[in-house]
């Protein structure tokens, strides 16, 4: 059955490439919309990783939720962002800053890479064999019931906060 294994490995690297390509597009894009597109591609790759890890449910949920997220960003990008012809004339940051930033990023990634590569990763004892929906549901409502409930509080706070901040903008317009 090595055929399937190769297929799986190939898919895995495909997803990784997808994530990186998306991130790169997102960073280098001149226009806001292209960078949102990069984000979408990158998130697609992340969903693929979930699939590769054996949980298609999580992969599809990730996809579903992120479509909503990306669409909201697109809407904001269109309404709030600069017009495409304005975005083209982007001022590059001063050269000294760029060098400093590059240095800092390289140092940080070198440190992280070095430590990650030098760490013997002990695989965890396989506590659970299945990632079925039943198992997910049980762990969300038993082991992780408190975080699960906290998420709902968090979302509630976020929604109320967003609504009110949007309303503040409206007061400002009236005055």
């Amino acid at each position, binding site marked *: 059955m090595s055929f399937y294994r190769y297929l799986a490995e190939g898919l895995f690297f495909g997803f990784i490439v997808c994530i990186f390509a998306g991130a790169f597009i997102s960073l280098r894009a001149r226009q806001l919309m292209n960078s949102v597109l990069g984000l979408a591609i990158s998130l697609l790759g992340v969903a693929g990783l979930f699939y590769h890890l054996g949980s298609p449910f999580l992969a599809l949920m990730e996809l579903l939720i992120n479509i909503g997220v990306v669409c909201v960003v697109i809407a904001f990008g269109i309404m709030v962002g600069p017009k495409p012809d304005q975005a083209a004339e982007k001022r590059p940051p001063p050269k000294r800053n760029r060098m400093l930033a590059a240095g800092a990023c390289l140092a940080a990634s070198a440190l992280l890479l070095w430590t990650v590569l030098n760490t013997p990763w002990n695989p965890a004892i396989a506590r659970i064999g299945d990632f079925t929906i039943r198992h997910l549901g049980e762990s969300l409502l038993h082991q992780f019931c408190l975080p699960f409930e906290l998420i709902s509080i968090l979302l509630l706070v976020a929604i109320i906060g967003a609504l*009110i901040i949007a309303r503040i903008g409206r*007061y400002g317009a009236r005055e």
Partner: protein
Amino acid sequence: MQMMLLLPELTLCLMALVFFFCALGPCKTDTLNNLASGLSVLCLAAAVAGFNQEGMLFFQTYRVDLFSQLFKIILTLGLCLTIWSGPGLRGIEEQLRPEYYLFLAVATLGMTLLSSAHELLTILLSLEISAFALFAIIPFRHQTMRREHLEAAIKYFLFSAIATGLLLYGMSYVFGLGHSTLLGELAQTLPALMQNEPLAVVGMVMLLCGFFYKLALFPMHFLTPDVYEGSANETTSFIATLPKIAVIAIIIRLVSLVGAEAVSLTWILAVFAVMSMTIGNLCALVQNDLKRLLAYSSIAHAGYVTIGVLSVNQIGFAAAIYYMLGYLLMNLACFFVIYQLAAEGENLTFDHLHGLYRRAPLLACTLAAGAFGLTGIPPTIGFTGKFMVFTAALQRGHYTLVILAVINSAISAFYYLKLVRAAYRPMAESGESVTLSWSATSLGLFLLASIILAGILPQGIIALAQEAVNSMG
């Protein structure tokens, strides 16, 4: 009785709910104010009532012990004092006042959850609940002021997102190495990992950086002044005090989990502490805006309190708790004076303090007590706190660190005393006097008394703090 274990949290939820319903209809500011004062006292009472509770809840994710209950008392006390010291919410847009109290309650709820959280995801979510509530209230400042509050809100939000990213990144390493998100299980694997794996140290530092953002410690300190300056006075007094206390609780939990043997972590924390003190104190010297000054001072104080934490012993942790209590009282004293002086909710500079000793003797006195305390002059709580922290560090042999901290304290004396001088400089013509309501007067007296009394008689509090640290186990 399971209800008793969650009493403070439930009361805070109740407070949030009440203000949620207030927000639905028109509500007078006076009514709101009385409600808020009453409910916050109720929360404090609930926290005190739940003091001796102990237990593990929700499948090991939530730990109620003396340590968490002590922090819940301090947090609800802080909520009480901030609400009492800012009656009328002069700096807040009028239509938004019910929501303002709603978010204060929710933020405090998040912090109390944080002090009890015993699992990484729970910690993250409680931190985010308090953070989201704060994002919402920063732009509530009155629109007639300049529009700095919007800048402050955006900055606070964006950098907080980055800090959360760091936190999660660190958590992923800790989880990858320790194979668990439960602190109880991590406690068995993590101390050994910290000594053998550099990655565990990197992960832990990144995890802690997420909290340092709230604490305004060195690598994550840079936007504190802007945020404090842009927020309304009453919002600043909340942001400057309560989140830091909650975050210190979780940092103490995490650091004690890692154990005293993690030398590299201690080193990193020491560097952060020294940088934080130095930057905070030097920048504060040239400030003119009082809130900016207090922001830099809070960066410096984050450094001092970290010294207590990095000593990783019982007295160090107890000293950190005591120090945070003192910091709460002294800072609130300063913000209380600022709020009372700023009739329109504007930002104050040194010029506004002139002749204060004649215009409002009580305010001048409270400000002086707060400033002396922040400097660390006996007999205030600030002195005792610093003394304890330094003692703890000396016990562990961190001599250089203590020397640097003492030098820093000396530098800080300059700008704190500048505050006192501005308030007490003799003036030819006296400006209009500030009238204080009876509740403001009593609050001023309370702050004044507590700063001095807790400084003179620290034994009870310290014994309690030590017991709390022991209960963490």
